[in-house]
C-alpha cells in the first residue's frame, strides 16, 4: 500500500500539469479573489472608491456644500462635469452613475419642495450603484437637509429674535434638527439598457461565458500545432512545397474560423432559446464578433507559440485564461479590484470583448461609439499574431 502511495506521489510531482492545477492555479485565483472580495491590498482595507460624475447646474452654496460632502466620503470619488456629458459617459459605461443637481435646487430645498436632483445610473453596475445609494442617501442627503433646515431656522430666529444669545440659538437649532424628519427626495433614473428588452444577466452569460469558453477552445487549436510538431506532421508539411508561414496562417485561419463559428453559435442559441434580440445593431455585432474572434484566436496561437511543448502550452493556457477571465470581468466585477488590477484588466481580451457586447446589447451605443473597442481588439490580435509568427519561426518551424 505504501509503495503504491509513494509511486503515485512521485508520478504526481513529475506531472507538471497536475502540480500547477492543484497548487499554483488555486493560489493565483485565491489571491485575485482576495484582492477583489476581501479588499486585500486596497487602501485602508477598503474597496476602490466608486467614481461618480457630478453636474452642478445650480451653482449655489447648498449644491456646493453637497458636492463638498460627497467628495469627502472615502467610498466615492467625484468627477465634475456638465449634465449632458455626465449622462453620455454613464451611457458609454465610463461611470456607474452621475448626480445631476439641477437649477433651483437650493430654492426648492429652502421652500421644502421637491428638489430637482437626480441620479442617473447604469443598472448593470448594481454593486457600484448600491454603494452610491447607501452613501448618498444616508450621509449626504441627510446632511443636505440639515444644512437647509439649519439655515431656515437661523433665518427665522434672526428675524423674530434679533438679540437672541448664540448658545440659545444653537441649542434650538440642534433640537429642531434632531426632531426633524426632513429628507429631500432624489430622483433615480436608469438611463442604460432601457431601450431594449434583453435581460442583463443574459448578456453577461452570453458575452462573458462565450469569451471564456472561446479562449479554451482556441487554446486547444494552438496546442494542436505543438502536437503536430511532436508527431511529425509539421515536418512532413515542410517537406511539401508549402512555406512555413503558410502552415502557421492555415492554423490561424482555422482558429479564427472556429472562434467566429463558436461566438455566432452562442448568440444564435441565445436568440433561439432566450429570445435575445440580435437585431439591435447588426453591423456592430458582426464587427464585434470578428474582432473578438480575431483577438481570441491570436491569443490562443500566441500561447502555443510561447510554449516549447504541448504540455507546457496546456499548463500556460489554463493559467492565463483563468487569470485573464478573472481580472477581465468574466468572474469578478472590475470596480471592486485594486486599481493596479483594473489597469491590468485593460490588457485582457475578456474585458474589451465583454464591454463591446455590453455596448451593443445593453448600452445600445451606435457603431461609431463601439469602434474604438473593435479597433483595440483588432490591434491586440495583430500584435499577438506578429509575435506568434516570430516565435513560431524560432521554435516550431525549426527542425
Amino acid at each position, binding site marked *: 500500500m505504501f509503495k503504491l502511495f509513494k509511486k503515485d506521489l512521485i508520478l504526481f510531482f513529475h506531472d507538471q500539469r497536475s502540480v500547477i492545477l492543484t497548487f499554483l492555479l488555486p493560489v493565483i485565483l485565491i489571491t485575485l479573489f482576495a484582492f477583489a472580495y476581501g479588499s486585500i491590498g486596497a487602501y485602508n482595507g477598503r474597496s476602490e472608491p466608486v467614481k461618480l460624475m457630478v453636474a452642478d447646474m445650480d451653482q449655489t452654496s447648498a449644491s456646493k456644500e453637497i458636492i463638498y460632502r460627497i467628495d469627502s466620503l472615502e467610498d466615492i470619488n467625484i468627477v465634475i462635469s456638465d449634465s449632458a456629458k455626465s449622462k453620455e459617459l454613464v451611457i458609454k459605461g465610463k461611470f456607474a452613475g452621475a448626480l445631476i443637481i439641477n437649477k433651483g435646487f437650493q430654492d426648492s430645498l429652502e421652500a421644502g419642495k421637491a428638489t430637482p436632483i437626480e441620479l442617473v445610473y447604469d443598472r448593470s453596475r448594481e454593486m457600484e450603484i448600491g454603494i452610491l445609494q447607501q452613501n448618498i442617501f444616508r450621509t449626504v442627503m441627510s446632511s443636505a437637509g440639515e444644512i437647509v433646515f439649519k439655515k431656515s431656522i437661523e433665518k427665522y430666529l434672526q428675524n423674530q429674535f434679533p438679540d437672541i444669545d448664540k448658545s440659545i440659538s444653537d441649542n434650538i437649532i440642534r433640537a429642531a434638527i434632531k426632531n426633524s424628519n426632513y429628507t429631500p427626495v432624489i430622483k433615480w433614473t436608469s438611463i442604460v439598457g432601457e431601450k431594449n428588452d434583453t435581460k442583463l444577466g443574459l448578456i453577461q452569460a452570453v458575452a462573458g461565458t462565450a469569451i471564456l469558453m472561446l479562449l479554451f477552445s482556441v487554446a486547444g487549436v494552438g496546442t494542436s500545432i505543438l502536437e503536430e510538431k511532436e*508527431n*511529425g*506532421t509539421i*515536418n*512532413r*508539411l*515542410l*517537406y*511539401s*512545397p*508549402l512555406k512555413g508561414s503558410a502552415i502557421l496562417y492555415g492554423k490561424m485561419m482555422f482558429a479564427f474560423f472556429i472562434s467566429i463559428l463558436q461566438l455566432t453559435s452562442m448568440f444564435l442559441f441565445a436568440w433561439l432559446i432566450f429570445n435575445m434580440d440580435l437585431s439591435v445593431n447588426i453591423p456592430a455585432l458582426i464587427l464585434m464578433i470578428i474582432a473578438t474572434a480575431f483577438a481570441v484566436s491570436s491569443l490562443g496561437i500566441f500561447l502555443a507559440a510561447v510554449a516549447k511543448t504541448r504540455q507546457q502550452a496546456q499548463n500556460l493556457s489554463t493559467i492565463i485564461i483563468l487569470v485573464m477571465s478573472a481580472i477581465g470581468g468574466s468572474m469578478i466585477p472590475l470596480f471592486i479590484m485594486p486599481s493596479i488590477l483594473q489597469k491590468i484588466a485593460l490588457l485582457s481580451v475578456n474585458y474589451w470583448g465583454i464591454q463591446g457586447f455590453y455596448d451593443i446589447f445593453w448600452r445600445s451605443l451606435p457603431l461609431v461609439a463601439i469602434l474604438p473597442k473593435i479597433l483595440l481588439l483588432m490591434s491586440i490580435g495583430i500584435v499577438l499574431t506578429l509575435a506568434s509568427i516570430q516565435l513560431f519561426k524560432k521554435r516550431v518551424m525549426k*527542425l
Partner: protein
Amino acid sequence: MIQLRSVSKSYGNIEAVKDVSFSIEKGEIFGILGPNGAGKSTIVNILNTLVKPDKGDVIIDGVNIKDDGDTIKLIMGVVPQEIALYEELSAYENLMFWGGLYDIPQPELKANVNNTLEIVDLSGRKNDRIKTFSGGMKRRINIACSLLHNPKILVLDEPTVGVDPQNRNHIFEVIERLNNDGMTIIYTTHYMEEAERFCDKIAIIDVGSIIAQGTLKELRKVSDVKDLITVKLADSGNEIISRITSVNSLYKFDGTTNTLKVECVNITRDISIIINHIQNSGGVIERIYTQGTNLESIYLKLTGKELRD
C-alpha cells in the same frame, strides 16, 4: 542524379554533418547506414532543402538546392521516420490531403491515390481511419503519402522502425517495385540486413562523417574484413595441433574452447582445403561454423563498435 560535395552542418558547437560527399546515380538505391544521432536525418533534411548546409554544395537533378529549393521539393518524396499521419482521418483522406499539397489536379490526384493504395496493398482499407491500422499498415500509408506527386527521388528515413517481419517484407517489396520502375531511392537505416538486401551503394556514417562508401564488395575491400571459418575439434594432442597450425599463421587455435579459427577470402573455395588439412594432420572435426563477410563485420571493423538498434 544527386551529388553532395563537402557538405557540413553544425548546430551550435555540435557538428551534425562533417564534410560529407557522395553521389547517387539515377535508379540507384543508396543506403545511409549509421547509428541514431549519426547525422542521417540531417543529411535527409539538407537534401530536401529544409536545412541549409553551412558549407558545400548539393546538386539534385542538375539543380543546386541553393538556387531552386522549390523544384527540389517537387521531384523528391520524403518518408519521415515518424508516422506522420492524421489518425482521425481515413487512409484515403490522408492521401488526398498530403497529395493535395502539391497542387495536383483532382482527377489526377484521385487516380494517384488509388494507384498508390494498390502499391502498398491497402485499397481494401482506404476508408478506415488510420487509428484503426496496425503499426506496419500505418508505415505503408506513411510511404504512400510521399509517392502521390510521382517523385523522381524517394528518401526513406528509417521506414521500418518498429515494424513486424511480415510488414517489413511488404515495405521491402514496395521499395523494390518503385526502384524497378526507375525511382532513385535514398534509404537511411541502422539495420544492416536492410542495407545489405537492396542497396546498390552504401555510405557508412558515424558522428557526422562518412567513414566509407561504395558497393558491399567495395566496402569489404576497403575494410579488409575476411570470412571466418571456426572448427571445433575433438580432444586432440599438442602434436596434432602443432601440426595443423605450423603450416600457416592464419590457423589460430584457442585452447580454452578447443577451436580453430581461420580467416579466409572465400569460404566456399577454402573450406575443403582447411578440412583436408586438419584431417591429414590427424585432427578430428566435431563441428564447423562459417561466417561470411557482412555489413555488420565491416561496420565493426571500420568503427570499432557494433551497430545496435
